[in-house]
């Protein structure tokens, strides 16, 4: 063009009117490969799978968008509830495995939906599918592990224990010696429902080996 100088310097100058290259550079990629859905994305069983895992039949969704309008997450992220349900209708299961688990479960979507669909429950069903077909997110396994080992999602710190003593509050259940029995029950139950396998925990079915403060 008319600008001289090094290529770097060229890029930094503001785009001239009519300079197609410069405009394009600002706008981003013009040609996007694979911008057409041709059917490989479509999993014909996805809708039924969702129903099997407790979601509702998404086919009756009117796509009215009320769910998106009330969803706190839709407001702040590119993920629109209505659009996600549309992707369910289309059977695009794979895309859900790339979306973080950011539904808050606030159920505003169900509260406002005229078709009586519960997108929050649909997402729960999809999480069930993802866990069984792909794997479980790290934060889930961590939390489940804690619960298996301690009965609760956290081990009370020494500060906490001191506070309770000072205030005359009863000791926390999982600091009591008898709690081992509870952990054994959890262990047995998790094994019975095969939750341990699902999540990748170390339930033995015979009893928890670790307790708070122990090995």
């Amino acid at each position: 063009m008319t600008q001289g100088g090094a290529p770097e310097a060229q890029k930094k100058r503001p785009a001239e009117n009519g300079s197609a290259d410069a405009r394009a550079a600002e706008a981003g990629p013009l040609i996007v490969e694979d911008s057409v859905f041709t059917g490989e994305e479509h999993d014909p069983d996805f809708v039924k799978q969702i129903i099997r895992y407790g979601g509702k039949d998404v086919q009756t969704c009117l796509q009215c968008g009320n769910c998106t309008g009330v969803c706190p997450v839709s407001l702040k992220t590119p993920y629109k509830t209505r659009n996600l349900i549309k992707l369910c209708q289309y059977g695009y299961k794979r895309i859900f495995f790339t979306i973080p688990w950011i539904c808050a479960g606030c159920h505003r979507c169900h509260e406002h939906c005229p078709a009586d669909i519960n997108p929050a429950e649909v997402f729960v069903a999809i999480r069930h599918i993802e866990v069984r077909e792909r794997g479980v997110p790290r934060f889930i396994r961590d939390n489940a592990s804690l619960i298996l080992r301690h009965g609760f999602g956290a081990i009370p710190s020494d500060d906490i224990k001191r506070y309770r003593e000072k205030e005359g509050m009863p000791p926390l259940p999982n600091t009591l010696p008898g709690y081992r029995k509870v952990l054994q029950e959890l262990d047995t139950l998790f094994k019975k429902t095969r939750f341990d396998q699902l999540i990748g925990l170390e339930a033995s079915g015979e009893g928890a080996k670790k307790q708070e403060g122990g090995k």
Partner: protein
Amino acid sequence: MSAEKAQGAGRTAQGDQGAGDKAHGTGDRQSAPAPCRIGVFVCHCGSNIGGVVDCPAVAQYASGLKDVAVAKANMYTCSTVGQEEIRKQIKEHGLDRIIVASCSPRLHEPTFRRVAEDAGVNPYLVHMVNLREQCSWVHAGDHASATDKAKNLVRMGVARARRLEPLSARELGVEKRVLVIGAGIAGIQASLDLAAQGIEVVLVERGPSIGGRMAQLDKTFPTGDCAICVLAPKMVEVLHTSGIRLLTYTEVKEVSGFAGNFDVKLERKARYVDEEKCVGCGACSEKCPVKVPNEFDEAMGQRKAIYVPFPQAAPLKYTLDPKNCIHFKTGKCGLCQKVCPVGAVDFEMKPAEVRLKVGAVIVATGFDPYVPHIRGYYGYKEYPNVITALELERLINASGPTRGEVLRPSDGQHPHRVAFAQCVGSRNWKSSSNKYCSKVCCMYTMKLAQLLKEHYSDISVSVYYIDIRAAGKGFEEYYHKVRSVGGVEYIRGRPARVLENPLTHDLTIRAEETLLNKITEREYDMLVLSVGMEPPEGMDALQRILGISRSPDGFFQEVHPKLRPVDTARDGIFIAGCAQGPKDIPDTVAQAKAAASSAAAMLARGKVTVEPLTAVVDEALCEGCGLCVTVCPYGAPRIVDTKEGKRSRVEEALCHGCGTCAASCPRLAIVCRGFSDEQLSSEAAEAFGGAAGGDGR
């Protein structure tokens, strides 16, 4: 049994069913029936039956049964050819009973009865065996078993046919008068059409004036015709047609009887104004000190305690509302009576009863608009500038409370930015009753949007919708027009949140604009809720009075959704207009004309036929306990005094032959003709290979 022989070739007795019509008793008195000559016609019904059941084999099997003189397999028994075949076989073989093994009797039973009668066989000696809905259609995958079942069904049918008795229908005279309930456009149109044919009409309206919902409208879609301008001439015509007896401020209390002969009881509510004397001058209303919300204006305006609902009311007679009248509450005032130049105000007036006989009833009771949740998500009745479409209609109407000016309730200013929210109270699958689409809201919103644009040059209108339904004549064109010339904006998205600025009372709507794929927040001066239609208040009571059914959506139910849109399951009672379901004015008028035509056709012959498949009480067994009276849904049995004591008698014309009384009678004293215990048990016995002492093969 001798009683069977006494039946002979059928009765033509008028009146009651006493002597000569002894009911049969219990099954254990069953004895072998007299020999007869049965013709069995097995129908292929094209491939419907023939594609699954081996019809020739079934016919062959049938011909081997006792008492079967001939058995044939036809392609389409209901066709002219098939019917001719039956006639031919009756003559050739001297048949005295016919069995048609084909589709459900609900389709062609009358046809075959007629064929038999023409050929000299009593029409009630025709029996149908269902090889289609109850055999080929449900066992389509297993031809062999279906054919076996077909043979069994035919054998059962033959056993039944052996025990059939000849019966004859009765004819009764009719009242050539029709009761029309509801004087909106549907009731008005039906009345005019009936009167034009010389049929007397009694038109009953529970409000003080006729006109209904159409009178509340400003303009109509898609033409923009002024509603009252096209309605008022019809209203006036009703007043001036001598064949129409108009009773306003009147309610229906009782409808008993049967098609052609209904007994009706009406209550004329006390108007406290003598209709004969009142000339509609309005002096009373001018002086009346009480102001209350006017129902006709959807409470956007007011009326006095003595009032006419709107200026074009017909009849133009004033009505006094005792709930809000000072005189009725405290004994004071009475100004209206003092100023009335003709002395028409009568505080002592009492409700009056009117009794009549009519031949048919047309129910044209219309709808109520859905009332949105008070203080719900749209802020109705909480934010003053959120109103319903009908409330807007009253504002826009030149004879409405604001003389046609659209003013914001909060500050009386014109709005500049108006939003409409569609599907309010309709298409809601969380509701058990409001799942349906109310059909008219998309179109009336276009009309209101268009009117707003015509009235105010600087107004912007946005319609928040999910789908647009513009299916009628000229409707799609109208949709095109409101967006192009009209400049109305269409936003696809259901309003998620409506917030109000507490100072300005302006509204903010947040919604996902699905076609933009963006959540947007926009400000408006006024939000109009496009509400759907609901069954009107008083539907439950009216349903009980009329004894007709309602669909799951709460409106009255037509007998067949495709082919009989204005008939109800109770013969002689018809429905028309929004009473049957949400619809616009053209469809309402069409249904009104259809109902009038059906009612007229029913009355045209001057008589009705009463089918004899009704219940009969054996007075020798009856003890008059009254259980049958309690269980009958149609009020057919009645306890009468006889020499032997109290006995039940069934009014044939009211009886639908449902069998409930016969099943309930503790003395087994009631028989349903055509469905007696012997007939049914002999048929059932054949299903299990024949009972002991049965008819054998």
